[in-house]
């Protein structure tokens, strides 16, 4: 099994001193779905940023999608990583006054075939069709013409997923994708998300505070505590007392 992500003795602290990540060693294989858990400030978001080269780390080594770097990737590496990664955040980050279709087309921006992906009306027909396909995958074709600010939170997040899917990423990075949704919408989004990545063989790394999501929608759960990996277990083997250990002193 090839590693999509590998870190060795990854250490990171911000300017104010105290280490946030204090020697992280993880390996993530192709097609795995990983839930990253840990209390507020445990360093989950920071770890995601280090993996994709969005924040420099202090020591250790990271290899993402075959690009190996220390501290931070060089420009070419960063460009190569970005080309093959899809991102989803807690806030959907859709352009409110634009149609759903245009927002999905935006996913092509920054890719070599993304010319004109500012708006669905000017982009190549092929990309418009890919966008509809991505919308079909998140079950939102009916909303293609709606404005993004007319959507519910759950629908908006699914559009954000479609925007990431149209990139045909090898790796999907999602930072608390369900955190601002109600329980039903959150579950729905996670279901759509994890089914899609499994069917398409995309590697998924997502953070969550919801243990149900971690156990149900990931193959493996990695817990961070005090800057280290507290446990790294198949989802089916995660037990209550271990989870309690992550969140209590």
């Amino acid at each position, binding site marked *: 099994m090839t590693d999509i992500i590998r870190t060795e003795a990854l250490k990171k602290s911000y300017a104010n001193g105290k280490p946030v990540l204090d020697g992280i060693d993880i390996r993530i294989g192709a097609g795995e779905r990983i839930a990253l858990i840990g209390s507020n400030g445990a360093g989950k978001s920071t770890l995601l940023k280090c993996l994709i080269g*969005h924040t420099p780390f202090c020591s250790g080594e990271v290899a993402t999608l075959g690009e190996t770097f220390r501290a931070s990737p060089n420009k070419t590496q960063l*460009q190569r990583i*970005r*080309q093959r*990664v*899809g*991102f989803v*955040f807690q*806030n*959907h*980050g*859709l*352009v*409110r*006054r*634009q149609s759903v279709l*245009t927002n999905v087309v*935006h*996913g092509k*921006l*920054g*890719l070599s075939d*993304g010319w004109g*992906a*500012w*708006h669905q009306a000017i982009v190549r027909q092929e990309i418009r069709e890919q966008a509809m396909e991505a919308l079909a995958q998140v079950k939102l074709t009916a909303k293609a013409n709606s404005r993004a600010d007319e959507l519910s939170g759950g629908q908006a997040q699914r559009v*954000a997923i479609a*925007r*990431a899917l149209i*990139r045909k990423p090898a790796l999907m990075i999602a930072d608390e994708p369900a955190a601002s949704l109600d329980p039903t919408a959150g579950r729905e989004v996670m279901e759509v998300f994890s089914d899609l990545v499994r069917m398409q063989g995309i590697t998924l790394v997502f953070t969550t505070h919801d243990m149900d999501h971690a156990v149900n929608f990931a193959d493996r759960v990695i817990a961070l505590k005090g800057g280290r990996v507290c446990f790294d277990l198949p989802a089916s083997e995660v037990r209550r007392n271990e989870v309690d250990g992550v969140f209590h002193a």
Partner: protein
Amino acid sequence: MSSMHDRLLPGRVRSVPAATFAILVALAALFIVSVGQVSPSPSQLVGGLPRMYGLLERMMPPSIETGFLTRVMWRTVETLQIAFVGTVFGVLLSLPIAWFASRTLTPFGPLRHVFKMLISLFRTVPDMVWALIFVASIGLGPVAGTMTILIDTIGFCGRFFAEAIEDSDKQPQEALFTSGASRFSVLTGAVIPDIMPSMINTSQFALEKAVRSSVVLGLVGAGGIGQELKVAFDLFQYKNASTIILVIFVLVLAMEAVTDRLRAKAQ
């Protein structure tokens, strides 16, 4: 007992720091000296009022001679053309300049201040001065007027567009930057759609402003109805002048009525 309260009683006037007091005295002195130099003396007022009345009398009734009215009509059309063309080009040029000047999206780093200063220069130098400059460089006529409106519009829209770009919704911008989109792509894909309503509003104000100033640009020879007004005063044709003043009055009122309607609709 009462003497203790007396000590706590605040004075009627709060004491003023010495520096503030000095500035107040200086301002008062400056005012008195200036009044003597620039305000009308009683004899000027007494002598001027009858002459003002005489002028008004010579302006009445406004001229309605057909040849003159036709000329005024074409000059009015020219005024609106200057305002319209100048505003459209000004708005179009404002966009890239505002982008280059914006703190959040400029491709030029600290050099963005050059564009900010350019916008400030365009805004702070009065339109009549720009008109003089363009009349001197490209010659008398409406082209100088159009250039003046264009520059004035960049000064106005450039500033507000840049602020709108800086204040626009950051989340979609971050989402697109994260996946490697260029600044230009983020501007076109996320920022412009977001600030479109405020841009339309600003442009409408720019057009209003342009009509107002294109009316008087002719006074320095930059085309439009103002040119006709200057001719009328220069040749002592006061009845023509009053017609033109009435036309200007109606023109600006009509424009305000139209733009108010548009704004009400946009709400």
